[in-house]
């Protein structure tokens, strides 16, 4: 009979790891970067070409069409969107403050993406266009690089958007 008692106790001990548990409360400051998007006055486009507005952060620069596609859907991805694909920043504001949660790493190209149409099947990647990007403080014509660490949030990543004069498109 001893075995009858010992075996279940052994099995119980083996399995007594606990497993999954709710994560501890998140730190008050999310990692990633934050800033403000400033929209050029009077430049907002008609509502029928404003499906979604998102911030993107790419670990790769320069980009082309195929790099954008694979960057978004590769495993792990190299291009991240905020908010999630299918959601949008608010429209027709003068400015919008944001906080983009990201894992640590170097993000070489950060900007704002306008989704022009919901018909992705027909237009593919061309339903998106870049309407503004975070500029290098020293060489403003070039994208600025942001290094996200795992201890604090990088602040002051401000982006100017002018829908009427978008920058050169990477795809």
């Amino acid at each position: 009979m001893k075995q009858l008692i010992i075996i279940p106790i052994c099995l119980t001990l083996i399995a007594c790891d606990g497993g999954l548990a709710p994560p501890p409360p998140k730190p008050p400051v999310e990692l990633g970067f934050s800033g403000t998007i400033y929209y050029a006055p009077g430049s907002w486009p008609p509502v029928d070409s404003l499906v979604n507005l998102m911030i993107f952060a790419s670990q790769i620069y320069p980009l082309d069409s195929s790099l954008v596609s694979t960057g978004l859907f590769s495993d792990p991805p190299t291009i991240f969107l905020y908010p999630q694909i299918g959601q949008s920043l608010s429209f027709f504001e003068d400015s919008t403050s944001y906080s983009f949660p990201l894992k640590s790493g170097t993000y070489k190209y950060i900007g704002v993406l306008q989704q022009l149409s919901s018909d992705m099947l027909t237009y593919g990647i061309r339903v998106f266009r870049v309407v503004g990007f975070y500029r290098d403080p020293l060489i403003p014509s070039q994208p600025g690089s942001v290094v996200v660490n795992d201890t604090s949030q990088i602040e002051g990543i401000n982006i100017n958007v002018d829908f009427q004069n978008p920058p050169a498109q990477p795809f």
Partner: protein
Amino acid sequence: MKNFVFNTALICLLYFAVAQAQTGSISGTITDAKTNEALTGVNVIVKGTTRGSTTNALGNYLIKKIPIGTFDITFSLIGYISDTLHHVTIRPDSAQTFHIQLIQNPIKAEQVVVTASRREQSLREVPVSVSTISSNKIADHVSVRLDDELRYVPGVNMMSDQVNIRGSSGYSRGVGSRVLILIDGLPYITGDTGEIPWETIPIFQIDRIEVVKGAGSTLYGSSALGGVINIITKEISELPETRVRLFSGLYTKPSYKQWDWSENNRFNSGGFISYSNRVGSFGYLVSISRMVDESYRVNDVYHRWGIYSKLSYQFSEYQSLAFTTNFQWRKHGNYFWWKSLSEATRPADSQLSGEVNSARGNMSLAYKEILSNQFFYSIKAIYFSNFWQDNTSGQVNNTAASHVTQIDAQATYSITPKHTLTGGVVANYDRVFSDIFGNHPGFGAGFYLQDEFAPMQSLRLTAGIRYDWQRVWRELFKSPTATSPSQLNPKVGIVFSPTATTTLRASYGEGYRYPSVSELFTSISTSFSQIRIVENDSLKPERSKSYEIGVSQLLSENFSLDLALFQNDLYDLIEGGVNPNRFVIQFTNVTRARIRGLELGTKIDLFNHSLSTDLSYTYIDPIDLTQNTILKFRPRHLFYASVAAEYKLLHSVIDYRYVSRIEAIDENLVRLAPIVDGDNRVACSVVDMSLSYNLIRIGVPLTVGLTIKNLTNYYYAELIGNLAPPRTYYLSLEGNW
């Protein structure tokens, strides 16, 4: 011509009348040789006829209408050494009594299986790995769905609703099972998504389950890529029999406040009642079942009604016909994944008000005729209908209906006692009607042939081949898909038993899976952005090649060992994913993979059968050769232990299962769905325990059981974003008279 028809009919009638008149019967009681207790569920078969029975709760059996002649009569029960009465002579109107005592020995007992070669044979004659589950085990575990039970089978793990045999399947988002499930030898896969409808399988009417590991398309066709699971339902007993099982389970409240969402205790309750009897040549079994699971998660509740019946008719002692119907109605909350790990018992907000209603059922017909001791044949047909619709707040979203019809005619010819041919033809016709998959007909046909030859007592060779042709059309017989319609699958096997205690086996087999209608034709907007799922009618069938060598060794009367080394090469695996060139989601053939591993199993029987243990370890090395990474959704290690103990009227079983942490998952699924905290996963390490007090052995036809599932209340997720059930206490009551 009229005369010819009349004469033939008259001769047939006379033949049946004479044959029915000239019969005898046998009856008796079967008991345990050691304890003298009555044994339930012993299969009694009159070899060379269609006559047979099983013992009732008091161990009694009765077989009427045995033809005159001399026969061998076998008595078998899983866990006991089979016994055979040789050369029993049946005389007209004789009624003979044979009381049999069977010796319990799970180690030495030679199990009989039917799935590996489409005919009855000893497990020792089979060149592939086969595991069996008895109905007693199902009752011990209080399993209410078949997939609950498969979690205890060596080398098998479940990924939510998808079954993996030695890592064959992974998780393909609910479509396209890579393991074929059969009910009494007939395929049971839905016509639209090609998945296994677990909840409709009549688990209370199962006699045993056989799990054949490795590709099995040579005998069974599409979907047998990683293995075949055959559910053998109970036969109608010769004596009137009523069976009842009632159970009620209570989910433990979560240990964490964040997960505790209900003020009330949550229960999972149900049961069934069945009655069977024979009146002359006619036998019947009817059963009704009901289950209500309140669930430990929000909007995961389900209600289920089931009706099952089996009718049989003995035209003569050599001809039988069985007609089975099985229908299930279910209403189920539409829980897909958790809201987050912090709220692991709540679904994502979009799934809070969704539910799925389904009505599924099948009818099957099986005719069997034994023409001589050397030759018999069977004709089986199944019609399987499957309808579901999902609703959100009462608004219907998607619907699908599929109808699958299959006919299978098989003949077995023993040229000599050492040489057996098995062959057959199959045909199927399928229709799918759905707003997301479209309306598509499908048609297929195939034939198979297998030759088994035993040139000497210790050596058995098997070779077989099957040709299949399958087509799916856009419209009825217009615009067929580009999918290759033809498949040729060979197999070979060898079993060598150099001593009475050693069996060596080696086998090679091939498998394939024809893409399901949902993989070919799904066209729908997804919840994430405007990315559409679009059809791909150029999908190729998935293919596999399985190799296995194994040795089975009886080390002593109480100790056996089985070791298998296996390799499964997989070609053109179909996966759903984002096509970056078209910015759409599609099912495509993307993966070439290789799964190698070993499986070690041992059975130890101690203290004169009072304590028996069953241990198995499976190591799996699943490599995605296309990406040169580990295959997604496959564990590397499986370890299962089962300890069963008997003490007077008390029977207890403790099961432990360990499935190592899944190393690679589909990150895109986590990100795009999105499944918040979806990458949080741990190994599965679960203990289940059951105690039953078997009053049947003292003449009271009741068994009272207490089962505790997940005894240690270990929290884990079999599938990403899906918290598995916490500790659950079940009380059960089973009656059989």
